[in-house]
């Protein structure tokens, strides 16, 4: 019948201490991981907060079950460890206990299910009427963002106003991608041939990291984006800037760059509004390229050094890149960089 008296008490205390210490350490590590830049546990939107409340509840339940099973496994291992002359209790089962421990998981599941279903019903339906509409289009391996109501097209950086619901229509030009900004919303896939929808209301201005979450080929790891949540006034100013057409520079290196942009064939794949020759739609629209924070599908900062690295050999920087190595000369790169940096 196992250890008795002091031995049993020591075994139980030791088990409980080990379990409590483990749970404590895990809790510290969990909190630490929740305080990271791409955290899934610091919601900054209303729908995100609702989901996170369910997440928190489920985490607590999970912690209780974990601690319970760990403690029991340890206690039984120590208390019923083989002893000289020990006898095992010859039990075949116990119907009352079976009913009890069928009821325990049922109870846990019900406590999880009710708020889950509520949140799903509230957050997955149609977006509110007053929502801002954004079309997010997945490409191998970059994100395009269109604002059909505003006439703005951009890539890599998604700008949103605070406290206004946003309806994101999710599409893909090639394979399945997934739109995921952990702090604003759970992910929803971008499936070619299906228009998926997602809506949320960002409630805090700031910069949020996003990343493609569905394996989409060789450069899946490099398909990232950022979301900038602005005050309404800042957002309006950003929209005004994006609506302007790009002026083609007329003098200096930038003017030569504009010509180079045509000569090197960039116009075949990229649009620059204001440059009548540049009408391509394979790659990102570059009209306001210089106003973006990232380039190459969000994998690198948009600065001169990274832009040079990218132009000199795109597939070397982003494996599989649809933009080929154009074997540009250093002079051509100088010109293109000068031109692209005028596209504010």
């Amino acid at each position, binding site marked *: 019948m196992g250890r008795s008296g002091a031995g049993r008490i020591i075994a139980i205390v030791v088990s409980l201490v080990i379990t409590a210490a483990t749970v404590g350490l895990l809790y510290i590590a969990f909190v630490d*991981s*929740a305080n990271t*830049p*791409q*955290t*899934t*546990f610091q919601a900054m939107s209303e729908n995100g907060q609702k*989901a996170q409340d*369910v*997440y928190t509840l489920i985490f607590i339940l*999970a912690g209780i*079950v*974990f601690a319970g*099973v760990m403690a029991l*496994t340890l206690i*039984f*291992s120590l208390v*019923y460890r*083989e002893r000289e002359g*020990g006898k*095992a*209790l*010859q*039990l*075949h*089962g*116990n119907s009352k206990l*079976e009913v009890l421990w*069928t009821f325990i*998981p049922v109870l*846990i*599941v019900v406590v*999880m*299910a009710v708020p*889950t279903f509520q949140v*799903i*019903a509230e957050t*997955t339906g149609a977006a509110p009427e007053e929502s801002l509409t954004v079309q997010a289009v997945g490409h191998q391996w970059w994100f395009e963002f269109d604002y059909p109501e505003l006439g703005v097209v951009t890539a890599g950086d998604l700008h949103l106003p605070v406290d206004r619901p946003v309806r994101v229509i*999710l599409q893909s030009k090639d*394979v*399945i991608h997934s739109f995921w900004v*952990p702090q604003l919303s*759970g*992910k*929803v*896939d971008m499936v*070619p*041939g299906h228009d*998926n929808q997602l809506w949320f209301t960002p409630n805090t201005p700031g910069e949020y*990291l996003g990343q*493609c*979450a*569905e*394996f*989409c*080929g*060789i450069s899946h*790891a*490099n398909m990232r984006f950022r979301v900038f949540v602005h005050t309404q006034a800042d957002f309006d100013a950003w929209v005004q800037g994006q609506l302007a057409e790009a002026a083609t520079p007329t003098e200096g290196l930038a003017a030569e760059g504009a010509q180079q942009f045509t000569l090197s064939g960039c116009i075949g794949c990229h649009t620059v509004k204001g440059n009548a020759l540049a009408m391509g739609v394979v790659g990102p629209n570059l009209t306001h390229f210089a106003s973006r924070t990232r380039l190459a599908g969000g994998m690198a900062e948009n600065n001169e050094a990274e832009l040079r690295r990218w132009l000199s050999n795109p597939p070397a920087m982003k*494996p599989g890149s649809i933009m080929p190595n154009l074997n540009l000369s250093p002079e051509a790169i100088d010109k293109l960089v000068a031109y692209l940096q005028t596209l504010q």
Partner: protein
Amino acid sequence: MATAVGTLSHTEDRSRIWEWMTTVDHKKIAALYGVTGFIFFLIGGIEATLVRTQLAVPNGNVIDADLFNQLFTTHALTMIFLAIMPMGASFFNYLIPLQIGARDVAFPRLNALGYWTYLTGAVMLTSSFFLGGAPNGGWFAYAPLTSLEYAAGKNLDFYTVSLLILGVSSLMGSLNFAVTIINMRAPGMTMMRLPVYMWMTLVVSFLLILSLPIITVALVQLYFDRNFGTNFFTPDTGGDPILWQHIFWLFGHPEVYVLILPSMGIVSEVLPVMSRKPLFGYSAIVFAGAAIGVLGFAVWSHHMFTTGLGTVPQIVFSASTMAIGIPTGIKIFNWLGTMYGGNIRFTTATYFSVAFIFLFTIGGISGVMHASPAVDGQHQDSYFVVAHIHYVLFGGAIMGIFSGIFYWFPKMTGRFLDETSGKWTFWLLFVGMNLTFFPMHFLGLAGMPRRIYTYDEGLGWETWNLVATVGVYVIIVGVSIFIVNFFRTMRQPQTAGDNPWDAATLEWATSSPPPEHNFDVVPEVHDRDPLWYNRDHGIAPAAKPEHLHIHLPPPSYMPLVVAMGVALLGIGGLSHVAVAVLGVAVVVYGIWGWALEPTE
């Protein structure tokens, strides 16, 4: 061994190899499955080690993006189809006839064919690394990334063809196992006296019989899309990529239970014997196992919560998925109930089984967590899910398999694996797997997606990725010690005796290792724990009859011929139709010869 007589050794070795190639003895086939499965477990481990080494630090430069994608894809395929399932099949093969008191499985030659087709598919899948590139679209091979447009080259054809062949192998095995368990039980062994391991085998067999045809259809469709221009899954021409996901997971989810239920069965055998008391709640464990099997077919869309299913399907599949937590919880409580009040021998097998309860529970808990679509929106395709599946498959399936190896090794070989070395293996695997996989929960929480070959610094992912990679090397040490243990043990004398653990089931009623015909006299069963019943009621084992007239099926090389035909068919599917036609001819010849083979 024939080493003493130099001139004879060559021919004797050759005839030994021939004996293994033509064997239809379930115990030898089990050994083939077990050793081959373990070798592929090592290969899958090497693949994982490369993946983890690449991810040890941000912007790692160990392997390139394409090789990374091939490696994480084949790691999954290898571990699931070439390692865990075959190691399971090895135990099934070995134990079904012995635990139910039969002389062999129902269809011994089909059993041999199952092994040889498995070997064919396994070699074919792995050879793709050297023949232009291994599958690189994930083990789930989501359309349209797998279409010719986005995946030129033969990588994905190796995927479809080898998986089709492996499916044929598993289907033959499961039919054989189900028929054997249902029809060939010893007198007195009613269904509710079957060892729990046999129940789990039966449930797994039915899961495979029902789910393999589904993936077979999907694979044929994918093969046709890629090779004959059909449009099942390509959206541009009216196909539907979501259709692939439904079909794949309708197979893929039951497959998860195919991997874990056998280990649940092993734990249910080891714990009572080592605790020296009957299994707590036999019926509850059996029915819970069957319930998990049935429910396993009703939850597939929880792999698709993020595909835009809509509100109602999300709620329905969330409810059915959470419901699986109930029978799983019942099992965990009953295992703990089995330990309660015991006089538990902590052998290596016990350590692995007790660890199974704890580690599998962690995987079970995280599974119930992402049954909630609200949580799954964050978990799906993040490292949290990687942690979850590895707690189920490593903490569950693999720990169970190691428990089974240490428990049944004396029966299979007549020798005990060294216990001291075994405990080293246990602790290294236990610590190593927790170091590797627990931090993945933190990585998932910090927003790290799965299947990325690189990541930037500054995202808070550095520490835990490094810890996870260190954990893999700890596991490697543990597995290496086990391999040394195995070879050293095989050189020891056979001293185990018939029933060294004082176990209750029929396999311990015969000698260790058992004779080719298993039992001199087929035992009669009076109780769920037959040997304990006999012990407590003073029933002596039946006397060995003076003359043994036992009919055993003769060896046959026809299974090997048919498997070679299947191999040619597969090679034809990857190269030229003429080779496939030749393959069909060989298969037909093999089956013809099989049918006309004398049975005496």
